[in-house]
Structures are given as structure tokens and as C-alpha cells.
């Protein structure tokens, strides 16, 4: 009994000390819930929370003075760098998870850059909360991926090219402002799409998705590429 308690602690300590990806993954795995329903519920809840524009986009618009009809209209032309809901829905569950995780990874980097270049730390505390939420989603995605992988589903490649358009491009301040706005708009819309896809997931982890025609077209290309697992989770609080 005592040994059972010591094992997670030991793993956690080693993971923190060594800071190796394997150790981190092991730590995250130890923390993962084995309940598919619970994980799915958490993912749905987080996606629902993160799609709300009042959490990030609206504070950003107010802070930057973009709350005018012309500028708001431009802001709501959300960044097209995010996968559409149709594209996400066409993916297998593992590929979907990988895509979401990779996309959110890109969002994290953009947010970090945006915060570093444009804002003072005290300017927009919502940024900090958003980053924590994204990390939480990615951790849950990792756990869900592990759960599905241990089941019957075969890992597949995510949608290509999800990260490149998210790199910061604007040098001009005004452009940086409105691009940040569009990025956040796209982020919220993307999380809305993610929520919709999660809503369609069944209660059982063993159900296989039916592939869409689009997915069938890309099937060969994905098979040619090495399958990629979901990135290791980011410990919360970093």
C-alpha cells in the first residue's frame, strides 16, 4: 500500500529533476485519468470555455482601442490559419487530437510573442489565463490520445501546415495589432469547432470514426509519413 503511494511521487520527483521529455510524459501519464468519459467531459468543458470571446478577444480589443466598427469588422475576419470545423470533423479521433494539440501549440507561441512584444504583463491578465487553459487542453488531449492508443485506434498524422501561418509576420505596429486580433478571433472560433467535434464523440472510446472522402484522398500521403504522436503535455503552471 505504501509502495503504491510512493511510486507516483517518485516519478514526479524524478521527472521534475531530470526534466526529460520521457520523464515528463511519464509524470503526465501517471496523472492521466483512465476514464474516457471524464476526459471527454473535461475537454468539452475547456473547449466551451475557450471559445468564449469575452475571455480573451474582447479584452484585447478594448485594450488596443480596436473597438470601432471598422476595426472590429476587420478583427472578426478571423485568421484563416486555423483548421475549419469540417476539416476537423473529417479526421479520425487521434488525428483530430493531434491537430488540435499542434494548433494550440502554435497559438501558445503566438500568444507568448504577442504578449512579449505588444503588452506589459499587467496589461492583460487574461493572456495568462488563456495560456493556462491551452496547456490544460493539451494535457487532456495527451491523456485522451494515450487512452485511445491503448485501445484499438491507430495513430495517424494530423492535418499538415497548421503551424506555419501562425508565425508572427507583422512588423508594423498597426498590423501587429489587427493580426493579433484576428489570431484571437481564429483561436476562439477554432475552439468552438473543437467543441463541436468533441460533442459528436460517443461515450465509448472504442468506436471508430468513419473517414470522410477528403480524408480518404489524403490517406496515402499520411501513410507515407511517419505517424506522429501527440506532443508531450506541458506541465501546468509553467
Amino acid at each position, binding site marked *: 500500500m505504501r509502495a503504491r503511494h510512493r511510486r507516483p511521487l517518485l516519478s514526479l520527483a524524478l521527472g521534475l529533476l531530470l526534466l526529460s521529455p520521457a520523464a515528463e510524459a511519464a509524470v503526465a501519464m501517471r496523472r492521466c485519468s483512465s476514464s474516457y468519459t471524464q476526459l471527454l467531459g473535461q475537454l468539452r468543458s475547456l473547449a466551451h470555455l475557450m471559445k468564449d470571446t469575452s475571455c480573451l478577444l474582447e479584452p484585447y480589443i478594448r485594450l488596443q482601442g480596436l473597438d470601432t466598427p471598422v476595426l472590429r469588422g476587420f478583427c472578426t475576419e478571423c485568421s484563416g490559419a486555423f483548421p475549419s470545423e469540417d476539416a476537423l470533423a473529417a479526421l479520425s479521433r487521434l488525428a483530430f487530437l493531434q491537430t488540435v494539440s499542434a494548433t494550440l501549440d502554435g497559438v501558445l507561441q503566438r500568444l507568448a510573442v504577442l504578449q512579449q512584444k505588444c*503588452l506589459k504583463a499587467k496589461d492583460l491578465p487574461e493572456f495568462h489565463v488563456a495560456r493556462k487553459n491551452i496547456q490544460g487542453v493539451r494535457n487532456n488531449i495527451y491523456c485522451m490520445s494515450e487512452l485511445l492508443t491503448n485501445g484499438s485506434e491507430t495513430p495517424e498524422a494530423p492535418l499538415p501546415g497548421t503551424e506555419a501561418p501562425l508565425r508572427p509576420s507583422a512588423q*508594423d505596429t*498597426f498590423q501587429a495589432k*489587427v493580426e493579433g486580433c484576428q489570431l484571437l478571433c481564429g483561436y476562439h472560433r477554432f475552439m468552438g469547432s473543437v467543441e463541436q467535434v468533441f460533442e459528436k464523440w460517443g461515450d465509448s472510446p472504442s468506436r471508430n470514426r468513419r473517414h470522410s472522402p477528403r480524408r480518404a484522398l489524403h490517406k496515402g500521403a499520411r501513410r507515407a509519413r511517419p505517424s506522429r504522436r501527440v506532443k508531450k503535455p506541458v506541465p501546468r503552471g509553467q
Partner: protein
Amino acid sequence: MAFSVVFQTALMLALLSWRTCQSEVLAEYSPLTPEGLNISVSSALQHLHFQWTVHKLPYQELQMVFPIEISRVETSKVIWMGNYSTTVKQDQVLHWSWESELPLECAPHFVRIKSIVNDARFPELSFTSNWSSWKEVRAPTPEQNHWLIFPRNKLVEEGSNVTFCYNSARNPGLSCYVESALIDGEQLDSNLFTFTLTNIPFIRTQGTNIYCGVNHTLKDGVVLFVSKVLEEPKNFSCETQDFKTLNCTWDPGVDTGLGYNRQPSQQYTLFDSVSGKKKFCVHNNWCNWEISQDLPATFNFTLTAENYLRKRTVSTAFALTDRVHLKAPESVYFKNVSATNATVTWKVPVFRNYVTLLCQIELHDKENVRQEHNVSIKGNGEFLFSELQPDTEYVVRIRCASARHVWKWSKWAAATLVTAEAAPSKALDVWRIVKSNEGLHNVTLFWKPLSKFHANGKILFYNIVAKNLDKKSELKLLCIPAPTNGTELTLDQGSYQIQVTANNSVGPSPTSEIVISENSGNEEVEEEKINGTKDGFLVSWNPRYGDRAGHVVDWCEHPQNLHCDLQWKYLGSNTTSTVISSDAFRPGIRYNFGIYELSTDKTAYLVEKKTGYTQELAPLDSPQVAVANLTPHSFTLSWKDYDTESQRGFIQGYYVCLKSNSTECHPDSVKEGLPDKSTCCKHDISNPKQKTFLVKNLQPESFYEFSVSSYTSAGEGPNGTFTKVTTPDGRSYMLMHIILPMMLCVLLIAVVCYWKSQWVKEKCYPDIPDPYKSSILSLVKSKENPHLTVMNVKDCIPDAIEVINKSEGTKVQFTGKPLTESESPRPANLYLLPAEDFSGLAPCISFENFTYNESACDSGSCAHIPVPTTAPPCQLGMLASPDNSLTSLENTHTHSQGEIPAGEMNMNYVSQLASPMLGDKDSLLINPPEPVLCSEYKMQMAVPSHLASPVLSE
């Protein structure tokens, strides 16, 4: 002549041509013309930087002027003309800048320059060159030139003016906005528009958005960063706590930092001109400076605040010893602490101990600063406090500064000092209540707790000694534990001296003394009313006794409570008045004050009593009224006194309010409207002692309502519930009051008559007349025949006796009422007849003669003397006629004795005449005679059964 004219002309032409030629040669070879003009653009600053040279100066330096022309869009549109004057040296590269109001990216600019030699030292060199050729200048823009508005990312200070331009060549109908406000641009060229923002305000650190679009479609935008104006640092000062480092502080003012790293917060730099050292400060409001121990301890600091747009500086110069701000003293301790003295010691952490320090010492109690002292020390400090209060908690605070120059005091260091206890310093304030009861004095002692100032420690107990002044040996000792502030003593009627002391751990207080005399508690003093105010009561009195030590006024602060909270006040011997005030006094509460004179032997005598209200209120209740003496024309109201203590003011009288159907009021009353819109006649009874009221002049058989309310000086009490009264009918009342007494009189007369009838009867016609006593007879005798004598019955010999047999079922009845004359119109002879058969339930025998006819008993309750049936009949013939005998029997239901069985039938008679031998009928009652056979006639007399029975039984 002609030759000379031609020669002159030719000479003139030659000179002219030479001159012209000379000029051309000079122009071509002038070494003073500007050369190598180079123009660079600073887009951020909107500056054009000119750079040129002047070759082949004939002298080392030459004063020159350079006229410059700048055109925009095209060379013909000159927007600026000016001269640049300078002293030009040989081979010098000349620089000059021009700032454009319009962003240089908006349009191409053209520049030309020429030179003029204007040096007074060399007047022969006066020379103006030609203009240089126009030089076009274009500000660089990014390759993918989709920007429409300029300048980009400009940084200005709040309040500045900025000119923007935008190009609508590719976007016809382009509109531009500042934040959300549409801006009208001024057309500069066919597609070039400008607008100027003046006195620009600071909106946000993220910059002001200026953007253009077509039909609400954004085409381009810029951010104008407006910085707040950098302020001069305020309150710049430096000080040292330890002589090692100087801590310089200032108030930085507003933060001028902007977002997008356009401008960081202002930076601060500290420079000491004495040492020549400079330090960049990390923080925006303070900076530490290391003191070099080998340098003179003087400084001249300059603090510079700087951002991208401006610099601000402030300076301060000082000697180190003038900027000493010591740390708070440490190790504050006390030693040799007694009840009134204590010594405090402390240390001051100073790097250099040679500095003389000035220290302030404060001694606080819980309320105020009690002592303040200034002490000069070097290193450690020590100070002796005296005149302290025993058992008191003090706070000692110490702070120090440099004695040479008090720049700032250190922070206070504080420590708590508690002095030792001492014996209480003041006698208790004692008072008493004395009540006499059954030859004893019940003395309740009260004392006020000593203040902390006088207690000098925690009071542990109170000692009470009661000494009988008549019997010196008698002592009563009591020890009352604190915090009790009173006790009860039961003493006999003698005089007692009571001594009270308060005791703490050190000792007792001075003794407080009070004397209880024999008369204490029995004083009879009339109570006097006084008027109080909200500020209290002015109580005054007249001195009674000449030799007095003082006065005491006592009262209850809460007279309505069970514990009245007795208060008292000692006053001087010459005082004859005082104001008693208390926060506990409430309006509508009666307060009673007792005024005592204290004799020199501490005996208190009650001299006056006062009672009053701080504010009288109207009564809360109405009296309970009873109705009496109700007549058709009046009735009487009566009520009882209030409880004095419950009165909310002195009752000054009563109002009787009478409602009736009559619209008029009696003259001694006034009509008054009531809340229910009815009216009543109000009678005022101004005498509060009057508790009855006669309501008169009423109508019989009428309905009246009345209420009685009391009033004080504050007003009338509530109108009580109206009580309804209906006056009775006058005639029936009269009847009741006339006929009833009349009937009573008649009845009385009847009773008297009846009583007198007995007397008359007895006197005039007794049941068994005594002939000897008959007044009638005497009258007859005296008037008619003085020789008439009474016939003696014994002289008669009865010759016959008849016994009438009463048939069965015939009941002998006694009517129980005296027979009237008609019923027995004549005397009847009575015959005793034996009954052969009888079964009557209660047969009685009655005897009747002309003087006697009365029932002897009633049925069932008779006591009969049995008569033996065998007894020989007696003759009654002389008294009864045979003819009347039956009639008489039927009427009187007379039965013979012989029909009545023994035990069931009693004869309730006694012989009317005693045996001749006996001669006295009274003796018959004692010894009833045996029936005598054939004896002479005996007069018989019936007696009531209740009298007869016991007598007979005897």
C-alpha cells in the same frame, strides 16, 4: 570728333566685353560655390540632412551665407526658403538639417542651394553663386508598398501637433479615422491628402489608432504613440542610516512607457559631481549609492530622468552628517522597576560611534504622553523615569537623530513598562441606606470602586468594621472580596461607626468612616417637587443643623429597576444646592433625591426630600373609573390613585369627557371634538386629589358615554374607552324610591301589629283566659257588677263524657291556622270519645273551648301523651253541649285518645289547670300528671310540639 566718338564706343564695348568675360571666368572657376550636396532622409524624425563642401577658400575661414530652397511634389512648389549662415573653414564639410511637418514619405522633395560670401573683413570678396541644380529626395518605403498613411509608428509627446498624409490613388473614396472619428483631409495633390492633429492627448499606452478604409473596409492604419510628458523628479533626497550607503529617493511622476516597446519607462541616472561617479538606477524611485570611506563626506548629486523625447534633471548637495536618518533604537529594556521609578536602556546601531546622538524619550500611559525627555548619548542610552504611577502600564518610546543636524528622526522604538503595586492612596467613597425594621437597622453599604489611579494595584478585598458606639467592645468585622461594591449589615438600634477600607496586595487604603445613629432610617421628611431639565436637576436645600461637616445627595438612577443603582454625591458644608445630572436620566421617569447633612461625627441626617422629572410626559394610562349613584338625572364617577412611580409626570388634574345626545354643554364644561368627529363635554378637575365627579343635569332614560383621563404639565393622557351609561326612568325610579320604603313601613307596621296583637291577645284575649287576670272581667267587674266572681271549674261535676268514634280513613287534620270567628262561632263542648278502629297516620286530638282554639300540632309531628283506652271517661258536660259536639269534631278533627295507639299517637296538650293539690300549671310541665280517673274537669292548653316534646320527655 567722329573718331573720338567711335573710339570711346569701341572702348566701352571692349571694357564691357572684358567685364563680361571676366564675370564668366569668375563664375566658372569660383571656389566658393557649394559642392557635393548630399541629402539623407530620417523618416522617423522627418528630417532632411544636408551635407556639402566649399572648395578653395582664399582664406582660412570665411563668413558665408547659404540660401536654400525646398520644393514639394514638384520643383515649382517651393515650400520653404531660408538662409544658413556659418563660418566656413577650408575643406570643411557643412551640415544642415531641415524638419518637415509633412512625413517625407508623402511626397518627393526637391532641394537646391547657393552661397553668398558676406564677410566684412574681405569686402572685395563679395560674391553670390548661382543656385545648384534641384536635387530630388524621396523617403524610402518597404518593397511591398501597400502603406497608405504616413508617418508610421510616430512617437510624440502629449500636446504635440502631428500632420498625417494619405494617398488615395489606389483607393478612390478613401476615408480616414482617428480612433472612431472621421477626419476631413486637405488635398495636397491629386491623390495626396493631409490632415493635422493638434494638441494630441494621451489615450492609451497601446497608442492612438489612425486608419483609413473604403466603405468601412480597412485599407491601412497607423499607430501614433503619444507619450505623457516626462516630469521632473520630485522630492529628491539622499540619506544614510549606517554611514555606509546613501539611499536616494524621489517621486518619479507619471510613467511614460508605451506599448509595443515603442518607448520604455523613463530611466534614471545618478551623478555625483564631487566624485565624478555615475550610476544607472534600476528602480524608478530609489537608488543606493556606496559611500567611499576615503573621500570627504560631501556630495553633489544630479538625478537625470530620461526617455526618448526628453530629459529632466534635479540636483542636491549635502554633507553626509546632515543626512543621517538613523535606524530605530534597539534593545530597549527596563531595570530597577519600582512603584514610582524605572530605568530604561537602549542601543542605537550606528556605524561610526563618534557621532553624538540626540534621543527623544516619551512616556505614554493609555491616554496621553506623561513625560518627554531629550537625551544626548554616544552609543548606548540610559534614562531614569521617576514620579511614575504604581501598578500602571506605560509605553516608552525612543527615537534618535544626529545631534549635529537633525535631518530626520529615526523610527520610534517602543517597549512596555509596568510599575509595581502600592497601597491604595484614597479612602473609599461610601454611602448607605438604612431601614429600620423591628428594632433593627438594616444597613446597606455602598462604595464606589477606587479609580485605577488611586487603587495602585488590583483591589483584592474590602474590610468593613462596624463598631457599636454605645458598647465599645462590640465589633463586627466583614471581609468582602472584590469586585463587590456593597454589602448589607443588620445592626441593633444603637449607634454604630462603620469603617471601610480597600485592600490590594500591598496594603489597605485610608479608612472611610460613616456613622449610623439610632434615628437613622426613621426620619420623616415631607417630599417636595422639583422641576428638572434635560441637563439634570437643580437640587437646593436649607441647612438645618449648625455644626455640619458636609452634605450628601443620593438618588436612584434607575428607580424603576429592582436594583435602583443608588448614586450619591458628597458636597461641602456650606453648599446649599447642586446640579444632579446623569446620562441615565430619562424623560417621564420620576427621580427621588434625598438630602442629608453630615455631622462632624460622620452621622447623616435626612433633611429634605425632592422628587421630580427631567421632563414630564403625558400620562400613558387613564384611571379605572367606577359608576355609582346612578339616578335619572345624575351619576357619580370615582377612580383610584395611580402608582406614583409609574406616573410620567405630576398629575395635575383629570378631564371627564361626557358624550350625550344633547348638543349643549354644561357651563362648567367645554365642548371638545374627538378623533372620531364626535364631540363631548369636557369637565376639568384641576384638583389632582379629587377622585370623584358627579355628573348631573342628565335626562332620564338617556344614553351617555364618558371617559376620564388625567393630565400632567406635558399634556393629557389618552382618552380611555368611553363607558356607556343609561339613566333610569324617572317614575319607576320614584316608585322604587317611594313605594319600597312605604311597603317596608307597612310591613314593619304589620310586624309590629302582629307582635302587638300577641301582646293584645295575651293581654286581652289569651287562649286560656285567666279569669283572675282578665282585664275585661275587671272592667266588667268594676263597672257592672262588682260582686261577680269567677266560676271555679273544680266546683263543676261533669255528668257525661262522649267519645266519638272516628271512622277509618278519616284523618284528623289540623288546619294550622287560627280559626276565625265564623269557623268557630261559638264555644264547643269537647267530648273525648273512644275510637273502635283507627288507622290514621297522625291522628291528633284537639281541644276547643270558647277561649281556646289552636292547633296543637301538625300531622306527623305531634307528640301525644297516650291515653289508656280503659280510662274512664271524664264528664265535660258543663262545658260542651251534645248538639255541637259532632259538628265541632268534624270541624276540628278531634279524635279520642282511645283511637290512637301508643307510640304512634301523641297528645300534645297539658292540662290547663293544675291539680288542685298542685295548684300551679307550671309544675305540670315538670311532672305531667297521671290521668286521674273520673277526676274533675281540667282545663287543657295546647303547646307547640317543639316545646312540648322535650318538656314531656322530661
